[in-house]
Structures are given as structure tokens and as C-alpha cells.
């Protein structure tokens, strides 16, 4: 008996072992895409089997003993439309997945095919935040796009600038795109508010480097704003107001058609101008802004949609320092307007996905400064147009191929008056309060830049390894109306040239363990010169695209179901950067030369908690260096770049409980480099002292530390209407952070201008 019992036990064990060898475990969480809230009651079915599970109150599901191999998982939200995703169940292993599902309203016909998150990324190193989580970050004043400033790799910008500095790259080197189309600025002037209404933003993500072949014209990072899917049926709205501005959004959807209009207008300058004192008002600008958008979509057929989006943003900044002498008056005037019209066609058919987005736009910026008697004017009026198109298709079980084109055409009219040193650029040795050079040059240029960039990439999944080689070829056409500065009545001679840039890219993702992935990416990147730099008098028509070679590598680990960690290292080498000619009398049309080189390197750590019993947030640390060398063939040595910020630590945390949410943000960042003033001399003509400088960028503004708090209460009026009240207090500890060095008039004493110690923004928002 014993022997037969033992044999039976062995047989049972053998059967169990065999079953284990051919089965695996699959668990995961299903979240709503826009809000990242758990979806409860979603029926998850392994197609072709009898196996199904239902997500619990945390949105989680689990399959034990599921047959190994490739499967199609069908996710059917209650009352919604089912979506399908391909998954691989590995024998003898446990895999945990995370799905973001756009739940279409009942009656809607659009079905989103949820791909693996990696495919939706611009690069393997990417951090994305859904709108609802982003807007509740303390210090963001209910603006989800402001969260970009708190993502790993982003430097803490000087107050009032709103600059996005990613891994030490200049702000102009990082691209912002809305639904794939370049958008001039993420934030309004001053950095107080983003340029797109929150109600039109589904998600914002940052790829600090190593993005794929679909993206280009950037040496720095990529900020992607994903527009919202069609709104729910009926009429809905969102009206809000706080210290900064007021905004409104209205949407209507019926059947296949949906439309959303939104607008915002600021009043911060009028309110704050009552209390901000003279010197601070001169340093900390108080701009005025507005933006408005329209988004209309129609579902043509099943899996086919047409979306029209109109974006507009305006900025105005006035600043004047009164010094008692009208001949020494200092004034700044800045105006900027941007408009885009996008028509996006999306379709999925026969296992392929197509996206085609033609777009048109107009950008205008005008800077008029006066430094005593010396003027400084820069105007740029540009018409832009282009096309983004991509075709993505699965070829067999392991290959997904993407091919497309990314085209941008820019016609710019640039007029300039003033010193060659205005506006200041990276590498200029300047100090706050120093007047510009007294030379006054003038230029009127028309610049044309055309970039046609076909690209191709392939995702090859070889078991746990996914390789993504890609290739992008940029064909540039540069044209201008002055090859040399015009002299007298001599007829202008224009210029035209072609340039090529071939950018191979490669990304790798190795799922070394169900909870651990190793990622790496690298490649070549090119960025065309700014049209402002192609003028013959202030720039150089012969400037080539700047170039970067980049490599990143990291490890992602899912520590628990809702806790993940990522560690990433990066290295970026730059060359052919435009720098100012060091010569007293440079050759004609060479005020800028292409001698500059640079490098950025470092590492970052991100620990992120997805919502767990109401708690969520992240902790990020970035350590690195950003360096430049202006004229390597001469005597210039490596120096810290103007955008070097060695340490950046950000802690964001939120606790949501019923109708309440509480948030906090703690930031610590190294100050930016500055060049010290080591002496001075008296200039009798201008009756002022002029500074003498020490080693470039050899000192730093003191470290920045700030704690912000936020509290919100959502009052549900009716089943359709919600009132949200929030208070967002920045710098609750009254930290007097230095924002800029300032000197006495004879440059013998140095102090610091401190920023706004405490700012409380109280606001309300009605959603219906």
C-alpha cells in the first residue's frame, strides 16, 4: 500500500512538475489611462482558453498555472469596449504587467488597441504622468504640465524663466510636442502656467535622451503631451480660477462627433503688482498670458478617427527699472504668440496602424529692450508647416516595423537691432545688472529651413529581449536672403544649401526577470541651427546642424505591485555647437562660429509608488555634470555650462482619502554656475563702474531648498457636478533662496536677490 501510495505521490508530483514546466503566472493591474485610477470589475480573459479573471478594488488580477506561450489577453471593462493586448507567459516564471486603458463611453465606436507600454514610449528611458496625478502635485497650482519640472533629469530653473533644462541641455535643445507636432513652449513666459489647458491633456511624458528614430531636431530631451481622447457623450465643462488666472473648458459629444473648446486668461500681474516692491519687480517678471484651444473629432469608421486641434498661446511681459536718470532707463518688453492647427488621421486595419498629421502654424516673438541710450530689438515672425506620418505593422510574431516621415518647413523673418551680444547665449560672460555692449548693429533677414526626415525602426522581440534598431535621415535645406551683411545700396545676395544628417538609433530592453528589466539606448542626434543664428550680421549663414552622440543605460525593477525603481546612467557628447567668434574683427558673416563642444554625464534614480491605499508619489535624484568648451583649437578649457546643476533631488507625495487629497513636494538643487566679478574700473563716459571677471562659471548660486504643500477637497454637488477647492502653498518654510547674484554699483560687494519667500494660491474648479 505504501509503495503504491508512494508511487501515486510520485506520479502526482511528476504531474505537478510537468504542469509547472509548461505553465507560468501572470498578474497585473488595469488602470484608467487618463486618471490612472484602478479599473474595478474588468474581465480579463486569455483568448482561446477557459481562463478568465476579474480585477479587484485595486484593479488587480492574477492567473496561476496559465499555459505558457504567446497569448492574446482581452480586457473588457464593465459597460465599456473590450481591448486586446498580446502577452507572453513564460513557463515557470511569474510576470507582472500594468495596463492603461482608455475607456470609451458607451455608444462610442472608437476602440483603442492597447500596446505594451514600451511601444507607446518615445524611448526606453521615459517618465510619464497621467493628468490627474500631475495636477495634484504640490506647487503646480493645479496645472498638470508643470509636473515636467519635477521629473527626474530636469533642473530646477531660475524663478521667472520657466526653462526646461534636461540632463544639462540648453532649453532650446529640448523639444515639446503635442500629439507629435512641435509646440514652441511648454510653459508661458515666467513659468507660472503651461500653455495648454489641462482638460486637453491626457498624459505628459519626458524622455531625457535616447529617443527613437521617430523623433529628431533635438540634442536634449523630448516632452510629449498627449491630447485627450474624445470626451464623454453630452455636455461637460470645467471652470476654474485662482490667484494666477481663470480658465474654462466646454465639451460636447454625440454619436461619432465630439468637440471641446477651452480658454485661459491671467491676472497675476495685476494682483501681484499691488504688493511686489520695486527691485524685486525689476528682477522677477510679472507676465500676462492667455491661451485657447479647440479640439474636434469624428469617428469615421471602426478604428478610424479624424481629430482637428487648434492651439493658441500669447504672452506679454513688461518690466522697467527706474533709476532717476531718463537717459539710463532700463526697460524690457516681450511679446510672444504661437498658433498651431493640426489635423490628425488615425486608423487601425488588418494589423497595421496609421497616423498622419499635417499641420500649420505661426509663431511671433518680439523683444524690445532699452538699456539707457542703447536699444536692443529682436523680432521673429515664422510660418511653419509640416507633416508627421507613421505606419506601424506587426510582421510575424516577433517583429513590429514602423516607417514614416517627419517634415517641418519654417519661413522666418528676423529683424535685429542692437549689440551683437544680445540676447545673451550660453557661454557669454555676463552678470546681472551689467549693461550690454554699446555697439549697435542692424539686420533684416529672411530665413527658410526645410527638414524632410524619413525614418524607420523595427521592434524585434527575441524572448525576453526586445531590440529596436532605427534609422533617421534628415535632409535639410537652408536658405537666406543675405550671404553677407548688406552694405550701402549693394543688391543683396542670397544663399542656399543642402545638408544631410544620418542618425542611427538603437534601443534594447531585456526582461531579465519578471520584475527586472535592463534598458539601454543610444544613437546620433542632429539639431538644425536656430533661424535667428543664420543671419549674416548677427550670426553665420554657414552654420551646420549641431550634433550629439548619446548613450543611456539603466535598470528598472518592480519592487512590489505598486512600487518601482529605475536607475539610469547617461552620457552625451556634443559638437559643432554655435559659439561667438572670439575675434575683435571677425570675417564677414561669422559673428558665430561652430567651434563649441560639450558633454553631459551622470546618473539618476527614480523610486515611484503607484496609488496604494491612497498613497502615491515619487522620489527622484539626478547627479551629473554639463560642460562646454567654446574654442577647443584655441586655449579654452572645459568649463561648467550655464545649465549645469550637479544635484537635483525631488520628493513628491500625495495621500488621497475619500474627497480629500493632500500633497507635498520637497526640492533640493545645486545652484547654477556664475562668473565672479573680481575687480572693476570706472568708465567716465558712462559714469559707471564696469566689472572685471574671474574664471568663467567658477562660483555657484547657493543651493535651492523648498517645501510646498497642497490640500484639496472635492465636493460632489450632484451626480454630474463636482466642486474642487484647493490651496497650494509654495515655500511653506519661508526659505530665502538666492536666485541671482547682485553687486554694488562699484562691484566691490556681492549679495543675492532672493525669490518670493511664500506664495499661497487658493483656487476653485467646477466640473460638470
Amino acid at each position, binding site marked *: 500500500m505504501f509503495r503504491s501510495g508512494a508511487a501515486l505521490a510520485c506520479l502526482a508530483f511528476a504531474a505537478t512538475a510537468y504542469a509547472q514546466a509548461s505553465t507560468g503566472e501572470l498578474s497585473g493591474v488595469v488602470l484608467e489611462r487618463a486618471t490612472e485610477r484602478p479599473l474595478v470589475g474588468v474581465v480579463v480573459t486569455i483568448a482561446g482558453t477557459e481562463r478568465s479573471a476579474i480585477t479587484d478594488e485595486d484593479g488587480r488580477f492574477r492567473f496561476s498555472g496559465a499555459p505558457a506561450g504567446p497569448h492574446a489577453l482581452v480586457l473588457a471593462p464593465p459597460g465599456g469596449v473590450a481591448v486586446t493586448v498580446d502577452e507572453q507567459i513564460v513557463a515557470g516564471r511569474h510576470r507582472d504587467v500594468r495596463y492603461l486603458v482608455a475607456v470609451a463611453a458607451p455608444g462610442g465606436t472608437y476602440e483603442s488597441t492597447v500596446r505594451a507600454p514600451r511601444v507607446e514610449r518615445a524611448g526606453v528611458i521615459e517618465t510619464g504622468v497621467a493628468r490627474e496625478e500631475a495636477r495634484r502635485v504640490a506647487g503646480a497650482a493645479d496645472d498638470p504640465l508643470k509636473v515636467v519640472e519635477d521629473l527626474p533629469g530636469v533642473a530646477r530653473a531660475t524663478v521667472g524663466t520657466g526653462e526646461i533644462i534636461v540632463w544639462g541641455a540648453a532649453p532650446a535643445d529640448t523639444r515639446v510636442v503635442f500629439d507629435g507636432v512641435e509646440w514652441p513652449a511648454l510653459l508661458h513666459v515666467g513659468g507660472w502656467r503651461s500653455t495648454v489647458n489641462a482638460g486637453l491633456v491626457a498624459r505628459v511624458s519626458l524622455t531625457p535622451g535616447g529617443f527613437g528614430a521617430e523623433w529628431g531636431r533635438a540634442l536634449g530631451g523630448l516632452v510629449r503631451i498627449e491630447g485627450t481622447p474624445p470626451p464623454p457623450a453630452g455636455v461637460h465643462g470645467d471652470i476654474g480660477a485662482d490667484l494666477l488666472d481663470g480658465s474654462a473648458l466646454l465639451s460636447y459629444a454625440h454619436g461619432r462627433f465630439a468637440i471641446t473648446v477651452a480658454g485661459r486668461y491671467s491676472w497675476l500681474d495685476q494682483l501681484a503688482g499691488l504688493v511686489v516692491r520695486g527691485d524685486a*519687480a525689476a528682477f522677477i517678471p510679472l507676465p500676462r498670458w492667455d491661451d485657447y484651444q479647440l479640439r474636434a473629432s469624428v469617428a469615421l469608421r471602426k478604428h478610424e478617427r479624424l481629430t482637428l486641434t487648434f492651439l493658441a498661446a500669447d504672452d506679454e511681459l513688461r518690466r522697467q527699472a527706474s*533709476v532717476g536718470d531718463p537717459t539710463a532707463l532700463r526697460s524690457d518688453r516681450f511679446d510672444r504668440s504661437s498658433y498651431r492647427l493640426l489635423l490628425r488621421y488615425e486608423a487601425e486595419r488588418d494589423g497595421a496602424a496609421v497616423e498622419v498629421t499635417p499641420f500649420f502654424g505661426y509663431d511671433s516673438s518680439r523683444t524690445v529692450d532699452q538699456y539707457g541710450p542703447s536699444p536692443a530689438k529682436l523680432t521673429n515672425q515664422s510660418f511653419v508647416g509640416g507633416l508627421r506620418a507613421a505606419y506601424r505593422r506587426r510582421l510575424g510574431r516577433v517583429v513590429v516595423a514602423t516607417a514614416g516621415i517627419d517634415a517641418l518647413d519654417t519661413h522666418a523673418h528676423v*529683424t535685429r537691432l542692437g549689440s551683437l*551680444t544680445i540676447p545673451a547665449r550660453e557661454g557669454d560672460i555676463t552678470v546681472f545688472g551689467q549693461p550690454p555692449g554699446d555697439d549697435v548693429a542692424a539686420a533684416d533677414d529672411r530665413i527658410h529651413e526645410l527638414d524632410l526626415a524619413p525614418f524607420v525602426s523595427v521592434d524585434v522581440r527575441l524572448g525576453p529581449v526586445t531590440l529596436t534598431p532605427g534609422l533617421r535621415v534628415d535632409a535639410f535645406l537652408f536658405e537666406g536672403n543675405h550671404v553677407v551683411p548688406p552694405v550701402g545700396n549693394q543688391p543683396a545676395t542670397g544663399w542656399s544649401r543642402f545638408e544631410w544628417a544620418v542618425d542611427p538609433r538603437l534601443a534594447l530592453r531585456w526582461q531579465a526577470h519578471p520584475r527586472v528589466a535592463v534598458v539601454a539606448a543610444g544613437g546620433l542626434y542632429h539639431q538644425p541651427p536656430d533661424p535667428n543664428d543664420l543671419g549674416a550680421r548677427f550670426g553665420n549663414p554657414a552654420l551646420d546642424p549641431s550634433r550629439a552622440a548619446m548613450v543611456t543605460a539603466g535598470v528598472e525593477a518592480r519592487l512590489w505591485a505598486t512600487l518601482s525603481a529605475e536607475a539610469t546612467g547617461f552620457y552625451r557628447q556634443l559638437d559643432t555647437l554655435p559659439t*561667438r567668434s572670439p*575675434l575683435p574683427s*571677425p570675417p564677414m558673416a561669422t559673428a558665430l562660429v561652430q567651434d563649441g563642444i560639450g558633454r553631459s554625464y551622470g546618473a539618476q534614480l527614480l523610486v515611484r509608488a503607484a496609488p496604494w491605499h491612497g498613497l502615491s508619489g515619487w522620489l527622484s535624484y539626478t547627479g551629473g555634470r554639463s560642460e562646454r568648451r567654446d574654442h577647443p583649437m584655441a586655449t579654452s578649457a572645459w568649463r561648467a555650462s550655464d545649465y549645469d546643476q550637479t544635484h537635483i533631488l525631488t520628493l513628491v507625495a500625495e495621500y488621497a482619502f475619500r474627497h480629500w487629497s493632500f500633497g507635498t513636494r520637497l526640492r533640493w538643487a545645486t545652484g547654477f554656475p556664475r562668473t565672479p566679478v573680481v*575687480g572693476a574700473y570706472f568708465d567716465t563716459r558712462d559714469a559707471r563702474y564696469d566689472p572685471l571677471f574671474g574664471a568663467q562659471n567658477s562660483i555657484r548660486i547657493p543651493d535651492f531648498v523648498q517645501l510646498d504643500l497642497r490640500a484639496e477637497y472635492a465636493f460632489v454637488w450632484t451626480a454630474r457636478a463636482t466642486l474642487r477647492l484647493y*490651496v497650494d502653498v509654495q515655500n511653506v518654510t519661508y526659505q530665502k533662496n538666492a536666485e541671482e547674484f547682485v553687486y554694488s554699483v562699484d562691484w566691490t560687494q556681492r549679495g543675492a536677490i532672493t525669490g518670493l519667500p511664500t506664495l499661497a494660491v487658493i483656487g476653485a474648479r467646477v466640473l460638470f
Partner: protein
Amino acid sequence: MLLLLAAGCRPDFGPSLSRVTAARVAAVRFEPAEAAPGASVTATAFVVAPGGATAPALDWSLCVTPKPTTVNDVVDPACLQPGGTTALSSTAAPEMLTLPAMGCRLFGPDTPPQMAGEPPLQSRAPDVTGGYYQPVRADLDGAPTIALARIRCALAGASFEVASEYAATYLSNRNPTLTPVAAYASDGTAVALDAIAAGSVVTLAVGWTDDSPESFPVLDPLAQLLVTHREAMTVSWLADGGEIGATNTGRGEDDPALFTTTTWTAPPTPGTTHLFVVLHDSRGGVDFATWDLIVK
């Protein structure tokens, strides 16, 4: 809306530039105020000090290093370094100096002849008044001062017709002329300079002759036209006692007034305060004078 907004703070660095606590060069007047390279000019320094204007020995030198386009200062930093200038003399008297013959090439629009196979060089842009300047260094006890002597150069970047018109109409700059200082009480009544009440606040007014603000043409390079401007006038107020309100005051080119004012708070005790006034026109012309303010 609840607003908790504490304005940003800027440090207070103490007394302004108007208080004279030690001897320093406040101005240098060149006569003539504008001359061609190679011409001789007389440089007279205005050295202010507690107790009145003085005439100490100054180390005069000429800067011969043009500044790169990247430098915002009025001179290349090399001019402030040892050996960065061509020494002239050390004298307390007005300095007679000869402007370098290559001034328009070093600091003006002239460029060297184009070499075969090399691109032509870019002409240097003038200041807002269309002018170019020869830097002159005057050191007092090692403390450097840079004065800018306006040099007459050809008009660059202009058509032949415009350049001819410019040559025919442009008049070299002349130094402006101060008129005496006057003081007024808060009610507008005149106050004698030798009878100012201790601790009182008076308005000081100084003027210039009506021919001091001169008109001159400036090239608009984009329109290829000559535009007529009028000199703006700026006054620097310095004193070895009391407190000056605004250190620099003046009139813009569109303001026809021939005077400017500032306030002065008399010391609390009787005594004599020396007031130093420097008048600048926007083309580098200078006049200066000293007055005694007697507090009773």
C-alpha cells in the same frame, strides 16, 4: 482670494556712488571733444576728493587692444592688465596726447585690406550715436579709470550718396557748458548756497547752455537714411557730505529743458560740503565744476 506674497529682497549695499569718501577720477574732458586719429587732444581729469577737487598725478596710457565682440565692457579686459596699454606719462597737469593713427582700424569701422583667398572682415558697429572711441587709461594710485576719446571715422555701411551727405553735414562734437548750480527749498524759494539750513532737504538744479545739446546725423543702416538726433544730457552729482538723492539725472534727446535737478539732504551740523557736478552729452562731451555748499 487669500494672497500671502512677500516680495523678493535685494540687499542694501550702503551709500551710493554719489558720496565721495576718497579721491577718485570722476571725469576726463578731451579738447577737442572729437578728433581724427593722429590728432592731438588735451585730456583734463576731474579728480574729486573729500575737501574738494584735487590735481594729483595720474598715470596716463593708451589702450591699443580692440575688444572682441563677446565683451560687453567698453574696453578689452587686456587694457586693464599690466602691459596692456601704451604708457604715456605720469602728470597732474592736463595731458597732451596724440590719438593713435590707427584708431579707426583698432576701434572704428576700418578693416585691414582683404588678403587674397581670405574673406573680408566685418566692420565694427558704432554706438547709438554713430561714434567710435579711443580708450584712454588714467590711473590714480593704481585704481584704473577708462576715458573714451571720441574719434572721427568714416561712415561705414552706407551708400556713396549717404556717406557724402554725412561728410557734408556731420559736425564734430563739442564739449557742453555748465551753468551755475542753484538751490531751492521745498516750497520753491531760492536758497543761497552759502546759507543752507542744517538737516534740510533742498533741490539742487544745474543747467547747460542752449547750444550744448547739439544735433547730429546717425545712419539707419537698414533704411540707408541719415536720421537727425539731438544729444541727451546727463549730470552726475557727487558730494563729500550730506546725501544726494539721485546720483545721475538728465534729459532725453526729446526733452527740450536745459536743466536737471536732484535733492540734497544737508548734514545735521554746520560746515562746508563740496559739490561736484559732471555734465555729459551723449557723444562723450564733458564739462565739470565744483561748488561749495555751506551749511549753517
